[in-house]
């Protein structure tokens, strides 16, 4: 059966533009999904820096909350620096995860994907042009 696919992609100049110390997180709400639930099946990250990334997926724009009842995490995916590959030894690093099955629901009913990017490397993520990161999610809504 063919599934309806929604692709959500961040913008390098708009999202995840801050500096990130080790273990720090920057959150973003990706709008315009057109759906409030689906299954994330692939994630692609492009990054100027080769760092270890976590991507967290929440059900609300409250993101992480020290109250365990209020925190609606649906999952996270880790990318090691060894997952980051360049082409011809130059330019950005590509990280991919396929064959995922991460169901999520936008509990805000805002047709948004609520995402947090965490830097797990000891090296800080740079702000601005030297630390650009783009994240793409492939979401199937018929699953």
């Amino acid at each position, binding site marked *: 059966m063919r599934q309806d696919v929604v692709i959500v992609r961040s913008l390098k100049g708009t999202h995840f533009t801050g500096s990130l110390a080790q*273990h*720090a*997180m920057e959150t973003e709400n990706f709008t315009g999904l057109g759906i409030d*639930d689906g*299954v994330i099946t692939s994630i692609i990250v492009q990054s100027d820096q080769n760092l270890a990334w*976590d991507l*967290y997926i929440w*059900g609300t724009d409250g993101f*992480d909350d*020290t*109250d*365990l*009842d209020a*925190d*609606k*995490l*649906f*999952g*996270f*995916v880790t990318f090691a620096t060894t997952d980051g590959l360049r082409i011809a030894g130059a330019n950005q690093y590509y990280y991919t995860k396929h*064959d*995922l*099955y*991460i*169901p*999520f*629901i936008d509990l805000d009913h805002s047709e948004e994907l609520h995402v*947090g990017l*965490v830097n797990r490397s000891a090296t800080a993520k740079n702000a601005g042009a030297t630390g650009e990161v783009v994240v793409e999610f492939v979401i199937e809504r*018929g*699953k």
Partner: protein
Amino acid sequence: MAKVMVKSDKDLHFTTELITNAIEKEAFTGLGIDHGVIRSIVIESIQNLDWDLYFWENSTNNSTDLDLDKAIGWVALPNTIGFQIGATGQYYYVKHDLYIPIRNLAHNETLYVGLVNRNGTQKEADASGYITVMAMIDDGN
């Protein structure tokens, strides 16, 4: 397929202390379904311990009578997959890409779950041992 999200309450479920290998059992009501497939699990915990989650088909849960024990699966979430954000707050554990078919033999739209502490350190009771469990279930429709 429709998705059913069930999440425990930190003050109502799994609130007791658990020594190594001990279990606390809960019945999550109001599922709206009696069968489905668990596709992902998220644990949030104040303590970073080694957890097992067991699933049963009825409220008998674990029984020494092998005919009566209707275990339908379990998942291990070791402390090595427990991550904090900003090196503070609760630990997050996730398991994706699961395919654990479940059915409720009591037909009461309830999920029967057992939490086992596999760590040498005991799980604390109440606030210092708060833990929540979330499961995403495909209902097959």
